[in-house]
C-alpha cells in the first residue's frame, strides 16, 4: 500500500509570493519599467540615427585603437556582412539590450562583490544565491519577468541582468580577495583607513580580474538577450525565433551568424581592455 504523502505545493508558494510582489510593488516595477524603457529607446535611437557605415567606421577604429589592425579588419568585415544580410537593425537592437543589461548588472555587481569580499558573513550568504542564479535554467527567469514588466524589452533586460550578473560579482570578490596579504598589511601598517585601502590598493589591484568578470557578464548577457526573444524582445533573437516558427533554417543561421560576429567583437574588445590594464 502506497503511503500517501501530500505533494508539497512549492510552485503554488512561489506563484503566490510572485503575485503578491507584483501587486504590492506595482509602483516600483512600473517605475523601473519606465526608466529602463527610456534608456533602451534613447540608446537604440542614437545608434539607429547613425548611418550604418559611420557606426561601422567608429567600431573598426575603436577595435584598431584597443586591439590592433587584425581585429579592426575582422570587425569591419563582420559588420559589413551583417549590413549586407539586412540584419543591421536587429543587430543594433540586440547591442542596445546587451549594453543596458550589462550596465545595470555591473552597477549592482560591483558594490555587492566588494561587500562580499570584505565581509566573510556576506560572502557565505551570497555565494549559494549566485550558484542558484547561475544554475537555474535561463528560461525560467523569463516567466516572472512578464507579470513584473509585461511582454517586451524591459522584461528581457530584467531576466538578462539576473542571469548575467553572477560572474561580475564573483570575479570582483575573487579579485579583491586575491590581493596579496602583504599589500593589505602594508596599507594597514601605514595607517590606511578601510576606504583608503579599498581605493588605493584593493580595487586597482583587482581590476584585471574584475574586467574578466565583466567580459563574462557581457557574453552571458548576449546569449540571454537572444533567448529573451521568446518574451518579445526585439533584435537578432527574434529573427531566429521567427525562423524557427516558419521552419526556415537559412534565415535562422544568418541571424545566428550575426550573433556570433557581435559576440566576437564584444569579447575581443573587452579582453583587450583587460590586457591593457595589466601591462
Amino acid at each position: 500500500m502506497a503511503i500517501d504523502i501530500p505533494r508539497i505545493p512549492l510552485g503554488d508558494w512561489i506563484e503566490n509570493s510572485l503575485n503578491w510582489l507584483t501587486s504590492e510593488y506595482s509602483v516600483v516595477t512600473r517605475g523601473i519599467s519606465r526608466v529602463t524603457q527610456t534608456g533602451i529607446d534613447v540608446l537604440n535611437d542614437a545608434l539607429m540615427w547613425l548611418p550604418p557605415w559611420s557606426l561601422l567606421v567608429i567600431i573598426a577604429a575603436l577595435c584598431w585603437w584597443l586591439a590592433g589592425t587584425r581585429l579592426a579588419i575582422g570587425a569591419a568585415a563582420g559588420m559589413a556582412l551583417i549590413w549586407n544580410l539586412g540584419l543591421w537593425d536587429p543587430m543594433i537592437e540586440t547591442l542596445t539590450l546587451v549594453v543596458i543589461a550589462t550596465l545595470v548588472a555591473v552597477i549592482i555587481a560591483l558594490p555587492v562583490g566588494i561587500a562580499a569580499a570584505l565581509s566573510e558573513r556576506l560572502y557565505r550568504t551570497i555565494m549559494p544565491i549566485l550558484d542558484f542564479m547561475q544554475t537555474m535554467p535561463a528560461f525560467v527567469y523569463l516567466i516572472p519577468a512578464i507579470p513584473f514588466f509585461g511582454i517586451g524589452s524591459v522584461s528581457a533586460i530584467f531576466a538578462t541582468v539576473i542571469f548575467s550578473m553572477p560572474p561580475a560579482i564573483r570575479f570582483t570578490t575573487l579579485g579583491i580577495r586575491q590581493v596579496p596579504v602583504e599589500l593589505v598589511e602594508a596599507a594597514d601598517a601605514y595607517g590606511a583607513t578601510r576606504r583608503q585601502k579599498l581605493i588605493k590598493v584593493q580595487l586597482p589591484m583587482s581590476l584585471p580580474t574584475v574586467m574578466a568578470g565583466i567580459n563574462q557578464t557581457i557574453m552571458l548577457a548576449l546569449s540571454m538577450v537572444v533567448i529573451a526573444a521568446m518574451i518579445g524582445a526585439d533584435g537578432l533573437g527574434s529573427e531566429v525565433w521567427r525562423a524557427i516558427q516558419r521552419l526556415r533554417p537559412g534565415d535562422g543561421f544568418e541571424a545566428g551568424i550575426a550573433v556570433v560576429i557581435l559576440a566576437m567583437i564584444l569579447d575581443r574588445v573587452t579582453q583587450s581592455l583587460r590586457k591593457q590594464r595589466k601591462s
Partner: protein
Amino acid sequence: MSDNRNVKIRVRNLSKVFGSQPKKALELRDQGLKRPEILDKTGQTLGLSNIDFDVHEGELLVIMGLSGSGKSTLIRCLNRLIEPSEGEIVIDGENIPDLKDKALLECRRRHFSMVFQNFALFPNRTVRQNAEFGLEVRGVAPDERREAADKSLKQVGLDGWEDAYPNQLSGGMQQRVGLARALANDATVLLMDEAFSALDPLIRGDMQQELLALQHRMQKTTVFITHDLDEALTIGDRIVLLKDGEVVQIGTPEEILTQPADDYVRRFIEGVDKSRILTAESAMRRVRSTVRDSDGPRTALKKMREHSLDSIYILDRERRLVGLIDAESASQAHEKGKERVTEAMTQDFRSVKRDEPLHNLFAMFHDNHFPIAVVDDRQQLQGVVVKGAVLDELAQAGEA
C-alpha cells in the same frame, strides 16, 4: 641594562594566543604548561608568552629567533597588525592595545613605518608613488609629499628611478624603495620584518652597512626582525633572543657571545665567526708604561728596560698619542746626544678605536709588528692590543 637612554617602547607581559579561547590557554600557561601541551589540551597555539623588553630611543634593537619563535607575531603586535591577547605596549605614554579604531590609525601613522620581507610594494604605483604612500594616507599635500618622497629616495640611492615601476627594479633596489617608503613617512619607529632576508648575500651585506650608516646619521629607533644570528650581531645595538614565543636572552652582541644565558643560546652562537663580532676592546690590555713627548731617549730606554718592552708609546701632556719609539732607535738617539724622544720616534704603527672588529686587527699585525694602540675620539691612549691577545680572546670565545 647598562643603557640609560629614554625608553621609546615598553613591552610588558605581552602574550598572544592564536585561537578562539585565549583565556583558557593563558590560564594553562600560568599553571606552567608549555606550548605543545596547551595545543594538545585546548587546540590553541601560544604564539607569544610573557614578553618583556624595552626599545630605547635611537637604538637598533634586533629581535632574533628561528622560524616559529614568534618574532613576526611580536613585531606585528607592536603596531597591532595582530591583536595581542594580553599585556602592555606603551609608546610615548600610550598603551597601544587600549587604542580604539581611530586612535590606532593615528598611532600607526605617527609612530610606525614598516619594511617587509617581500618588499610589499604596490605594483600599480611608481617608485615615487610607493614612497609617498604613508604621507598620502595621512592627507599630506601632493607637493610636500613628493618632496619628502624624493628626498628619501635620494637617501637610499634611488634618485633617477622615481618614475619606474617596482617590477622594473632588482630585489635589492625594490627593498630600497621599501626603505624609502618607510623613511619618507618620518614615523618615530622603524619596524623591519626580515627586511633583508629575501636578498642575496652580497646585496644583503651592502644593505646592512647602509642601514647602519643611515642609523648612525638619523638615530632612528628601529626594531629589526631576523632569523640570522650573523645579521643580528652585525647590526644590532642590542638583541632580544626569542625561542618558542619566550625571551631567552636580551643583551648586546658581545654579551650574547661572551655570556650566553643558557645552552640554547650557546648552541646558537657556536657557528658564528667570532672575530667579526668581538672588538678591539675585548683583546685590549692596559698600557704598562708610556713616556712624555718632553722626555729624553734615556728615560724611554729606562722605562722599556724596567717593564721589559721592545717599544714604548709617546704621549703629550693631555695624554694624546703622538708617536712610538723602539729600543733600537732610542739607544741610537741617545748615542747621538738627542734631547727629545720625539726626534727619533716613528708614526709607523696602527691605532684603532675600541669598537674596531677584531678580524680587522689580523691584517694590521700582518704588515706591522708593533702593538696596536687603542685610542678614543680625542686620540687619548686607552690601551694596547698585542698579537697574542687577539688569538687568546678568540680561543676563549670559541670555548664559551
